[in-house]
């Protein structure tokens, strides 16, 4: 390895066989180059998809009760489950769960909304201030329901943009106007809108939950509970956190309401992050696809390097014979050919690696296409690929060299 004479001999050979060396080097470095770029864009696509769905992957979850479907503790199926304030309080205060926002909804039945003697057909829902964040609603005017409203059973109402447009087109602002809901007057304090949703979602007006329960004979009934969990660094952590919370929630509610642990239909918990997770499995599929393509690229690289080594050795059979006649030991010939092969493939392999990784570093951050973000490649993966190609090239060169060394010298040299 550190035999200076050997190195000189190899450099002589390389210098005087520029074309052969250049072709071998080119095939190795372009193989590495293509592979790294491919893997880089595979990673970029993964990053891109992760980014697209990160925005949609709400960390919220929705809980609503239904009828039981399984007989449990002597109770017949078909029993309607009713959530109550107590449930919400237990969850928010004593379960020790890690969530950021929590809201409940009460939908009073048979309420009449009247404005200026006109009967309005909109839904009324009681809730608290956190709902705004959880359902991602924006404020056009005024304010949303707040904690003070809830504590003081304030007779205030927040209406949607749609209601404002349809009912209050003649006044400058609906803020300060009064709506009569089931005989009680509610002062309008704010107007909200929904992001990106169609207007069907804007059919509602919100009043404080406590007011709704008191005024509309709701007692302590609630219809929905919503929670928002914190955003975490990694998506997997978020999924894990979400799943853990869902299970905790489900266990508590089922126990509290005498529902069979297997009866998932009695209490529904909708978990959008689980939906997002499906997209991530799709992404795993894409990743696998890129690996398969990458793998075959490596195979193609190995084959082409092997091919070139085979041709190189074939071309040198005569030279091998001459060297042998001049007293070269078999291993010194094989060693020389291997030495040269390893040298050329390493240099060109790492050149391809550096060039492609440099390109990814330079261009990667500027790629702004949907679903492709910051293409990059794991250095270790690329490095091992280079090593693999070197080993493959060496092995591919070894066997024909071994065969060439075994050839009868006189015969090999006589045939032109």
């Amino acid at each position, binding site marked *: 390895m550190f035999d200076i004479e050997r190195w000189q001999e190899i450099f002589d050979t390389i210098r005087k066989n520029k074309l052969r060396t250049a072709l071998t080097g080119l095939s190795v470095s372009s193989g590495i180059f293509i592979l790294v770029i491919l893997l880089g864009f595979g990673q970029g696509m993964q990053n891109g998809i992760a980014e697209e769905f990160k925005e949609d992957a709400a960390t919220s979850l929705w809980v609503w009760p239904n009828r039981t479907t399984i007989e449990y503790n002597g109770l017949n199926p078909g029993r309607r489950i009713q959530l109550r304030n107590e449930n919400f309080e237990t969850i928010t205060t004593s379960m020790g769960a890690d969530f950021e926002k929590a809201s409940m909804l009460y939908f009073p039945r048979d309420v009449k909304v009247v404005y200026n003697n006109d009967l309005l057909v909109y839904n009324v829902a009681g809730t608290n201030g956190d709902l705004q964040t959880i359902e991602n609603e924006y404020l056009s005017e005024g304010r949303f329901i707040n904690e003070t409203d809830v504590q003081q059973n304030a007779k205030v109402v927040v209406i949607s943009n749609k209601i404002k447009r349809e009912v209050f087109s003649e006044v400058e602002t609906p803020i300060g106007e009064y709506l009569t809901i089931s005989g009680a007057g509610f002062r309008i304090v704010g107007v909200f809108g929904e992001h990106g949703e169609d207007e069907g979602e804007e059919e509602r007006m919100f009043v404080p939950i406590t007011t709704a329960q008191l005024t509309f004979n709701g007692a302590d009934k609630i219809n929905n509970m919503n929670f928002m969990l914190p955003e975490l660094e990694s998506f997997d952590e978020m999924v894990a956190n979400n799943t853990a919370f869902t299970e905790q929630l489900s266990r508590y509610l089922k126990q509290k309401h005498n529902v069979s642990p297997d009866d998932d239909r009695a209490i529904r918990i909708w978990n959008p992050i689980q939906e997002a997770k499906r997209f991530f499995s799709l992404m795993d599929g894409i990743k696998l696809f890129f690996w398969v393509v990458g793998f075959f690229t490596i195979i193609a690289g190995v084959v082409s390097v092997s091919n070139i080594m085979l041709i190189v050795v074939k071309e040198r059979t005569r030279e091998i014979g001459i060297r042998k006649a001049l007293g070269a030991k078999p291993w010194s010939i094989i060693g020389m050919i291997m030495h040269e092969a390893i040298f050329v493939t390493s240099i060109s392999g790492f050149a391809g690696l550096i060039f492609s990784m440099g390109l990814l570093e330079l261009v990667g951050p500027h790629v702004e296409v949907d679903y492709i973000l910051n293409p990059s490649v794991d250095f270790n993966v690329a490095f091992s690929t280079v090593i693999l190609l070197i080993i493959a090239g060496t092995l591919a060169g070894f066997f024909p060299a071994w065969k060439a060394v075994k050839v009868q010298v006189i015969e090999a040299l*006589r045939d032109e």
Partner: protein
Amino acid sequence: MIEIKNLHKSYKMGSNSLHVLKGINFSVEEGELVAIMGSSGSGKSTLLNILGMLDELDDGSYDLDGVPIKDLNETKAANYRNKFLGFVFQSFNLINYKSAMENVALPLYYQRVARKERQEKALKYLEQVGLREWAEHLPSELSGGQKQRVAIARAMAAEPKVLLADEPTGALDSKTSYEVMDLIQKINDQGNTILIVTHEPDIADMCKRIVHLKDGVIIEDKKIEQVRAAQYVQ
């Protein structure tokens, strides 16, 4: 110098065995210039292979400068070849990407001679064959006769005990052949032992002894009056 006794060699060709050398007895003294003649298939190439340690004998014995050549592994054979033998081939067999000087220096590389000394020695031998000023040229830039002279210089560079030439003039016209033979005779005059395989009678006549092979046996072995090649060379 060379002592061969009852040499047998056969090759397996499928189920048949081809008996190529059928009991050769043959010895060469130091300083001899021997022509080995015979038609193709007479076994002269096989004999040269065995003499050059490129093939193993089946039966009999072969001593080279008192060293029995027997059961050699590849490495040992390579060592002996490098130390004892110089080869000259019909098709020159110069390495085409190396200059004349580098070709001549190559056997010295395998003797682990340092680079500088190799080059000096190579130039010395090129001088001897009259190609000093062609040292930096590639084989493709040389004529056939020049190539063969480079090959002879290369064979001599390792200072071998025996020079084996396999049809050294086979690819050359007669004028160039005589020039090469003149060179070979001069090298022989310096006391080197040389064996030439040839089928050209005029080339054989320029040696000091002719050995005729036919069907694997020596049918004639005679010392002759050497014809000097110099008289044909201006």
